[in-house]
C-alpha cells in the first residue's frame, strides 16, 4: 500500500492546507465531505426556513432573495478572484460608487446603454489603476487598496460635487432596467449576477488564466520562475473585480434611480466575508467562484430569514458576525483534524 501511495508523512507537511491528506479509500471520486460543508449549511438553512415559514418557498420570495443577493454576490465573485490571486481589493465599494456615478452622468449626456457601457469601462479602468498601484508600489495590497479606496471615494465626491446624480427624467424608466423581470421571472439584476458568476467560474476553473491565478496566489515566486507574469495576472484580477463592482453599482443605481458618492459604503467587507464563508483561503491559491456565491447566498438568507420569521432585525448583524466566525472556525477545525 504505502509503496504506491502519497507518503503520509505528517511531520513534513507544513503551512496552510498542509492537512490535506490523501488516504486510500478515504476519498471517493475526488469528493470530500468537508470541502462541501458550507453547501450543507446552506441547504440546512433552506430546509429549516421552508418548514418554519409558509412564505419562504414562494416564487416571489425566491425571486426577491436572488435579487437581493445579486449585488453582494457579484462583489463576492470579484473578491474571490482577487483573494485567490493573493491580493485584497478594498476598493470594491468605492469603485462601485465612482462607476455608478459615471454611468448616470454619461447616461444623462448620451443615452442609457452608452452610460451603462461607460460605467463598466470605468470599473475596469479603476481596477487597472488599483492593480497597477498595488503591483508597482509593492505595498501590501490590504494597505494599498485601503488608501486607494479613500481616493476613489473622494473622487466620487469631486465628480458629483457632493450631490446625488439622477438620470434624465425621460430616461428614468430605461435606467431602472435592472429591476425589470427577465428570464424565468427573475429580475435582470439576478440574470446579470448569475451569468457573470458563471462566466467567472469557467474562467477560473477551466482556462489557463485561471490556472495562473491559482499559481500566483499559491506561490508567486514559483509562478514567476514558471514564466508567469505575476503582476499582470494580479492586475487582471483587479480589473475583473472592478467590472464586478461596476455591474453591482449599476444594479444599485438602477434600483434607487440615482447614484451618490456615499453609496454602498462598507459593502466590500461583506464581499470578502462572503468569499471567506464560502471557504476561500485568505492566504491565496485556494478557493472557487461558487464558494463566494454560496457565501453571499448564506449572508442574504440570514436577512431573509429574519424578515420571514418576524425576528427583530436589530440582532441580524450579530447573527451574521457569529456565522462568519462559526464558518471559519469549523473550516479550520476540519482542516486540522484531517492533518
Amino acid at each position, binding site marked *: 500500500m*504505502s509503496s504506491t501511495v*502519497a*507518503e*503520509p*508523512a505528517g511531520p*513534513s507537511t507544513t503551512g496552510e492546507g498542509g492537512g*490535506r491528506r490523501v488516504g486510500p479509500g478515504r476519498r471517493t471520486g475526488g469528493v470530500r465531505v468537508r470541502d462541501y460543508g458550507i453547501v450543507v449549511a446552506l441547504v440546512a438553512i433552506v430546509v429549516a426556513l421552508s418548514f418554519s415559514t409558509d412564505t419562504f418557498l414562494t416564487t416571489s420570495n425566491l425571486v426577491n432573495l436572488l435579487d437581493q443577493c445579486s449585488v453582494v454576490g457579484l462583489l463576492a465573485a470579484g473578491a474571490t478572484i482577487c483573494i485567490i490571486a493573493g491580493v485584497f481589493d478594498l476598493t470594491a465599494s468605492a469603485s462601485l460608487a465612482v462607476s455608478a456615478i459615471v454611468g448616470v452622468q454619461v447616461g444623462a449626456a448620451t443615452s442609457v446603454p452608452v452610460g451603462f457601457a461607460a460605467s463598466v469601462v470605468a470599473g475596469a479602468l479603476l481596477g487597472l489603476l488599483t492593480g497597477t498601484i498595488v503591483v508597482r508600489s509593492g505595498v501590501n495590497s490590504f494597505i494599498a487598496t485601503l488608501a486607494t479606496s479613500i481616493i476613489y471615494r473622494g473622487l466620487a465626491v469631486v465628480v458629483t460635487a457632493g450631490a446625488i446624480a439622477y438620470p434624465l427624467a425621460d430616461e428614468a424608466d430605461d435606467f431602472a432596467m435592472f429591476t425589470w423581470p427577465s428570464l424565468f421571472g427573475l429580475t435582470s439584476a439576478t440574470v446579470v449576477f448569475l451569468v457573470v458568476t458563471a462566466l467567472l467560474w469557467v474562467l477560473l476553473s477551466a482556462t489557463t488564466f485561471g490556472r495562473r491565478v491559482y499559481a500566483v496566489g*499559491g506561490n508567486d515566486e*514559483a509562478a514567476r*520562475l514558471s514564466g508567469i507574469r505575476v503582476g499582470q495576472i494580479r492586475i487582471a484580477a483587479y480589473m475583473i473585480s472592478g467590472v464586478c463592482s461596476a455591474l453591482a453599482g449599476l444594479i444599485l443605481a438602477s434600483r434607487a434611480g440615482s447614484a451618490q458618492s456615499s453609496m454602498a459604503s462598507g459593502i466590500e467587507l461583506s464581499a470578502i466575508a462572503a468569499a471567506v464563508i464560502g471557504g476561500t483561503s485568505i492566504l491565496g491559491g485556494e478557493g472557487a467562484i461558487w464558494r463566494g456565491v454560496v457565501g453571499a447566498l448564506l449572508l442574504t438568507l440570514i436577512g431573509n430569514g429574519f424578515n420571514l420569521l418576524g425576528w427583530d432585525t436589530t440582532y441580524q448583524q450579530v447573527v451574521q458576525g457569529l456565522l462568519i466566525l462559526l464558518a471559519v472556525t469549523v473550516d479550520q477545525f476540519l482542516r486540522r483534524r484531517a492533518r
Partner: protein
Amino acid sequence: MSAPSHRQERSSPGDRGVGTRRAPQITVRGVGKSYGGVPVLRDIDVDIAPGTVHSLVGENGAGKSTLLKILGGAIRSDTGSVAFDGELTTIGSPRDAIAHGVSLISQEGALVPARTVLENVFLGRWGHRGGLVRTADDRSVFAELLAYTGFDIDPTARVDRLSIGAGQQVEILRALARGASVIAMDEPTAVLTEGEKANLLDLIERLAAGGTTVLLVSHFLDEVLKVSDGITVLRDGKLVVTAGAQTCTARELVTHMVGRQIDVLYPRPEPVRDDAPVRLRASGLGGGPVSGVDLEVRAGEILGIAGLVGSGRSETLRLLFGADPLQDGTIEVDGVPIPTMTPRKAMRAGIALVPESRKEQGLVMMRSVRENVALASLSSRRRGPLVDRRTERGRVAAATSEVDVRAARADSPMNTLSGGNQQKALFAKWLLREPTILLIDEPTRGVDVAAKAQIHRMIVDLAARGMAVVVVSSEIEELLELSHRSIVLRGGSPVGEYPRGTPRETVIAAAFGDAEPPPAPDIVPATQHHPEAADDEGDTR
C-alpha cells in the same frame, strides 16, 4: 503561569544552565500513530539509556520524524505508551514535554522572528521581578550558555536577521536554558555549513557526556554513525532494528532502511561526444554577489558548480535563467546572444531551472500534482484559452511516470507527497517542456536515499540524451561524481575548474581558499544571509 514555578526550581542562575537534570531512561512501548486511517507508525518499542545519543534513521516517510515528535510532545500517539524513568506519562503538549525536561528542535524552527536572540532563548520564562522583565538575569545565564556551547551569537540581534545555522543555535540555547535533560533534534545538520556542522556534532557529544540524552533524526548516516550510541532503523512506520552504533556500517543501515540491497554508487556520466555543440555560453556574468563568471556547456555535458554559502553558486544559475537581473556579461544559447534574460525568454530558448527550494520557489504546495507539473507548459497546450484537460492528463501522466512520481492520484495536493516525490514532480514539471538546457539547484536536498539514486540516474540519462546540464549542489561528492567537470566559486568569482575524479579535499580547499576549512562556526553576517545550505561533503551513504 507555570513559568514562575520552573524558575523556582532553578533559582540560581547557574542552575538554569546546562545539563543539571538527570536524564531519564526512556521506555517506548507499542507506540502507533495513524493519519486519516493510514498508519505512519506501528507498534514501536525502544529503550533509550540516559545520557546517550540515540538516532532514528529511515527513508522519508518511514516515520522517524513522527516518532521524534511524539517523544518531543509535538504530537500525540494513538496507541502505546512512553515512560520516563519507568513513570508512564502521556506527553500531550509541548508544555508537558518541557515539564518533563524534553526539548524538541524541529526542522521548521520555533522562533519569534522579529524579537531578539535573548528573548527567544528565554521565551516564556524570562527573568522577572514582580512582572517586570529583568534582562540582567537572562544575560548572565546566556553568557554561561555561550561559554558552554562555544556559540558566538549577539544576544541583542534580531532572530530574523540570523543565518539558518545561527537560528538553530538559538533553539539549542533555549533547550539548554530550560534545563532540558532530553533534546530531540530533527535533521539538525541539513541546513548547516561545514564548520557549523562539525561544531554541532561536537556539542552533541559533549551534551551526552554531560548526561543529557540526545535524540537525533538525520539523513546523513556518516554523522549518525559518528555521534550515536544507539541507532533505530524505521521502515514504513515499523521498527526494523535497534542496534549499537559501533556494530553498524552505513551499508547495513541503508539495507535496513530500504529493505533491499540498493546500489549506493553514483551512476557514471557518459562521455561527451566530440562533435557535441556548445548549448550555453556565458561570459563575464555579473549580478548580485556574482562577478566575472565564464562558463560553457555542451550538449550531453554535465557541468557542476561548487562553492560555499554566499559564493554565488545559486545566484549564477538564477542569472542564467533570468530569475535575477543580469548586471554584466552575456548569455548565449546555441550561439545566439539573449539580451536582458528573463524567465520567460529563458524558457523560450529551451532553458529550464529546477530551483533550490521546491517549497518556496518550485511548487504551489496546495495545488494538485497535475496543475503543478503542467504549470510551466500552460501555453503550449493551449486550446484557445481553455485548458485541454485530456491532453494535459496524458502528458502529465507520462512525465510523472517517467520520473517515477508516486502520488495517490494526479489531483492529490502537492503537500501530501513526500519530499522525494515532490522533488521528482518538480523535475517532471520542467522535463515536460523538453528543455535543451537544464539548470538544477540542489537536485536532492531533503530527499530519501532511494529517490536520490533515481534522481542521479535521471540526470545522467538526460545528459546522455543530449541535454546540457548545469548542477549546483552543497554535496560535493554528488557534484564531483555526476559532473564531467566542476567549477568552484569563491566570493562570487570562479577560482578553478576540476575534472571528474578530483579528490573532494582539493575542491573543498579551493572553495574555502588556500587553507584547510576553518573549524570555527562560521556565522554568516546578516548582509550575507542566504537560504542556501552549506557547502559540505555530505555523504549520503
